[in-house]
């Protein structure tokens, strides 16, 4: 996709149906029903505000952020959503952490082996790091988990939807702790059985493992974390 022309003062809105939207229209069963909207800011780097201050930083973001045309792939459409929170003086948002057996997955990977380790349970937890609790507006009741449907399933769950690029979306119920300042869920990822041909097709250069990713999003807070998987 190219960039949108931002040389004029007019704001151009470039809209497309996603593959799922077209599929819903084709079904002709009334499933194409626009019910709600969300706003996103995928291209924006708020680090600019910290570097240049609120006034200059705002101007730099507005004028120096070219925007890509809309994607038709539903799984790539809106990665980072804006949030509506009634507390207008909120200074901190909760943080989403992903762990495997207590190990933070920010800089490490989850390993699967086709012959032995075919299951891993990762833990998703959203918590406030300031000890002030999570604002009720962004308390998550569910996690949305996106996995590659070619290789993985989630134990005990059925995907809500499978996009044409083989991204399967699951919804996993979340648990609240007694203090109400942490929301968590255990997500058991099961490796599917697939052929050596599939393995060699999708494996990285050298052919020793397949690299895949799991995206976990708090359904209400919009907080997102991607973790890397390696299947050998």
């Amino acid at each position, binding site marked *: 996709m190219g960039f*949108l*022309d931002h040389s*004029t003062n*007019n*704001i*151009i*809105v*470039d*809209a*497309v149906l*996603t593959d*799922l*939207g077209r599929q*819903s229209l084709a079904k002709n069963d009334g499933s*194409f*029903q*626009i*019910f*709600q*909207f*969300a*706003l*996103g*800011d*995928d*291209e*924006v780097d*708020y*680090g600019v*505000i910290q570097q240049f201050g*609120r006034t200059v930083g705002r101007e730099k*973001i*507005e004028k120096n*952020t070219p*925007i890509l*045309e*809309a*994607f038709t792939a539903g799984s790539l459409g*809106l990665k*980072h*959503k*804006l*949030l*509506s929170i009634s507390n*207008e*003086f*909120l*200074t*901190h*948002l*909760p*943080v989403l952490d992903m762990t495997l057996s207590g190990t933070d997955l920010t800089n490490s990977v989850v390993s699967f082996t086709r012959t032995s380790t075919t299951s891993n349970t990762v833990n998703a937890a959203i918590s406030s790091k300031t000890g002030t609790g999570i604002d009720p*507006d*962004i308390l998550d009741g569910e996690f*949305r988990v996106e996995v590659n449907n070619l290789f993985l399933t989630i134990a005990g769950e059925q995907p809500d939807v499978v996009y044409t690029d083989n991204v399967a*979306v699951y919804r996993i119920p979340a648990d609240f702790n007694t203090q109400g300042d942490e929301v968590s869920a255990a997500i058991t990822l099961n490796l599917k059985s697939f052929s050596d041909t599939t393995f060699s097709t999708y494996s990285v250069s050298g052919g020793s493992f397949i690299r895949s990713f799991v995206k976990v999003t708090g*359904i*209400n807070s*919009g907080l*997102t974390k991607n973790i890397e998987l390696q299947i050998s």
Partner: protein
Amino acid sequence: MATFKTISSADIKTTKTVLNQLIDFVEEDVSGSTSRKSYQVFVTSSTHPDATNSITSSLFQTVFDQDYSLQTANELFDVTYGVFSGSTSVASASTDTDVNGKILFTSQSVMMREKINIYRQFAQTLLGNADSRFRAPFSSTSATDDIDNPLFLCFKRLFVRDGIKRETFAMRFFQSCSSPIAGDTYDNIFGQTAAHPSSASVIFTDVGAASSIERSQFGGDVGNIVLSSDTTQTVGLMFYQKGIAVLDLARALDETQIMSGTISSVGDTATTTHSASFIPNFVNSASMDDIIRHISTERFGTGSNTFLTFQNNTKINSTLVFCRATADEFNYSSNPTYTNSEGRILVIDESQQGEEKSFSFVTSVGLYDANEELLATAKLSRPVEKNDEKDLTFRVRLDF
């Protein structure tokens, strides 16, 4: 929910607009043998005692925008020719009618019944009755306005879309070929030596059609095609919704000009030398392929200029979705750069906490169903700031 906002039914509107595209066709596309496809589905009967050779021909030919053997070629329009069963052309060539009503012709006349059937098919489609006769002007009741030898140009839906816009049609046409010299072996049917001076061409147009709206019950809106230099001279009809132009060859070109050259034959030899008037001799004696080839190579020009143009109509049904973000909504972001590792919001100075309020930028709008599945996405050409002093409405238009 903090990330989604329900859209009320009052914020979804539907509208209809018409888009016009300018279409033009180039001379070399119609004159080139590789961009004009013949289908060769018709073979003359060999049972006639005079018919020692058979002719294979198309019933129509298709013009492409490039070599039609390439997969990237687009079909532009189909060309075919028809003749009215009660015309003098048919009367001059027919010998009898058999007991089943089949008109019989001499072997010197080629594909006459097919030419009649083509006319009847278009009459049925455009006038509602296969026995009807085209007349130009359309509303005329005078026999002098009959179209007995029409050329049909059927433009493809890819270019016509929902119809041709009135009063935008124009085409360049050579009314006469180079004249043969007596005793010379000159060929002006397929123009091996003919060169057209540009002054010989005329412009046919549907000027005046926007203010004089006529309608066929079966063919939709109809306009008259006239000579641009003298709009009182009508040369054909344009059926706008069907995307079909009907050109009366008797008026569009010099019907009495001697057409001299070699055409396919069912006689003793596979080809025969022809030297007689365009109507009725040439159109009766030549196969459909020969007639279409002559028109395509000799009457539209062979260069890189445009010979035919029109504007089409595309009716676009749109859904307008108004996404309204009030002052208190969407002022925070889940963007990973919005907070540091401890969750502190970076757009608020650490020293100004409790004083400064957060803000965000909007670059995308997502439209979702009730299951939070993304049905459509919209991107803004530049980031728009959202803060607690701004009420924003994004108008997202989905075209169908």
